[in-house]
């Protein structure tokens, strides 16, 4: 193991510890929480894969993934009670600290870019390093007690919930798709509509495919795993397109689809109910023109930037 891998494992273990703390919080919840034990189990298994996973045979982690999926499938994972700050508390703190409260959060983004650019530990470790720097700055500015890192960190993690590991799972699904040759099947189907060497049509099909798949599924992340393996990779990246540009624009091209679909209920339908609109599609209607323009922008940007 080289230095970067060791640092990475330390950060993954810290994530594991955060999972354990969320699990412990769940265990301590009141008896009325029917799923407190199974929720804790979910977080403990997840922590195991993060801390111990790399040091045991891979099939054990595979089995763990199936176990946590079973727990969420049967709705055995729920939030436990968190120490949520009262509005008076946050207002009082805001008045005391003023705009200084933005500083730790800005540190988070700026330190990540700096660490990735100037330190030899890689871009992934830079995220962990920036989180540590920003946390130190946050303690300096807020003078918060040390335990707040745990109280507020676990509160947010529990808030995000099991869905937080969805990106990781989708990347793993992409790996299984590749191993099974799913990409090839989609690629051979799509090759019928992409004329040889037509970069523009390939880019257009990929971006529109991302948007359409997202409209159907309501989730850009899931579409990205499927469409990138099936279309983006063989027809753009393998033809010399820059993977950074294709990947970055591919996901946001999918978001143009998110803007158009009632399937993305938490962004488009629930807020309409929240705002008590007469027409429950009023948000989607407001978004359609911009979604169309942005999709076109994506196609043009990808075509001109990826093959530069």
């Amino acid at each position, binding site marked *: 193991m080289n230095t970067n891998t060791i640092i990475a494992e330390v*950060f993954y273990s810290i*994530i594991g510890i*955060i999972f354990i703390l969320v699990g412990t919080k769940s265990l301590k919840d009141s008896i009325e929480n029917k799923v407190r034990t199974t929720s804790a189990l979910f977080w403990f298994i997840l922590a195991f*894969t993060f801390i111990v996973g790399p040091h045991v045979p*891979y099939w*054990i*982690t*595979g089995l*763990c*993934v199936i176990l946590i*999926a079973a727990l969420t499938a049967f709705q055995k994972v729920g939030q436990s009670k968190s120490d949520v*700050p009262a509005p008076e508390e*946050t207002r*009082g*703190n*805001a008045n005391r600290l003023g705009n200084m409260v*933005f500083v*730790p*959060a*800005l540190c*988070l*983004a700026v330190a990540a*870019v700096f660490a990735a650019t100037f330190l030899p530990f890689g871009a992934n470790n830079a*995220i962990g390093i920036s989180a540590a720097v920003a946390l130190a700055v*946050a303690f300096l500015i*807020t003078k918060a007690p040390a335990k707040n*890192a745990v109280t*507020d960190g676990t509160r*947010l*993690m529990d808030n995000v919930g*099991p*869905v937080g590991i*969805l*990106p990781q*799972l989708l*990347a793993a*699904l992409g*790996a299984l798709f590749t*191993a099974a*040759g799913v990409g090839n*099947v989609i690629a*051979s189907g799509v090759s019928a509509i992409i004329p040889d060497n037509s970069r523009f049509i390939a880019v257009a099909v990929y971006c529109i495919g991302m948007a359409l798949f997202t409209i159907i599924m*309501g*989730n850009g992340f899931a579409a*990205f*795993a499927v469409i990138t393996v099936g279309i983006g*990779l063989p027809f753009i*990246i393998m033809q010399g397109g820059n*993977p950074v540009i294709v990947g*970055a624009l591919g*996901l*946001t091209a999918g*978001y143009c689809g998110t803007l158009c679909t009632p399937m993305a209920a938490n962004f488009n339908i629930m*807020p*309409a109910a929240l705002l008590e609109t007469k027409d429950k599609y*009023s948000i989607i209607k407001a*978004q359609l*023109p*911009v979604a169309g323009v942005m999709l076109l922008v994506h196609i043009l*940007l990808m075509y001109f930037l990826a093959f530069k």
Partner: protein
Amino acid sequence: MEILKLVGVLIVVIGFIAKKDTIATVVVAGIATGLVAGMSIMDILETLGKSFITQRTATLFVLTLPVIGICERYGLKDKAVDLIRSIKHATAGKVITLYQVIRAAAAAFSLRIGGHPQFVRPLVNPMAQGAAIAKYNKIDDATEDQVKGACAASENFGNFFAQNCFMGASGTLLIVSTLVEQGQQVDALQIAMASIPVAVISVIVGAVYFRIFDRRLDKRYGNNKEAEV
């Protein structure tokens, strides 16, 4: 029967449409795909486990949660509210544009200030409605709905198109993980940088769009110049 291999894609589509548990849907799709392709159970578990371990990068955002949680407790959202409240004499379109700018900047810096329940309903929508009523005296139900739609849309525009500018965003990490899994060497800094043009353009497109929105309201109600500052 090559086409059978698409069973996993089908399961993902049906699972998401039917609002089945997302994690279970993805895992079932993976297993089904492996089985159809003739992989053994052990092969499937190995592949699933191995990529789950290597793709832990996609979950690195967890490391940023403690500091963001502390900032929230110490008034992050309250200060953002102050910032938006500070604009005076605005039109509906201007209020909404300003919110999109703030929302996009916040998303790019990973600040979780946004959200329809926390910001759009209690703050942006009332301010935009207020601005419209101040300018046109009275607005009909259809206009009220359109203002609401535009407010909620600005939250989504800002959130969606700017979030990947942050290296630790889960979307950014998903892109990195997926491409690395396919043998492409990309890192989070590169993806974050490549996400900037779309973020900037989306803000410009939003600003133009909400300006047109103002113009259309002017047209509908007759331009009341005196109320404009």
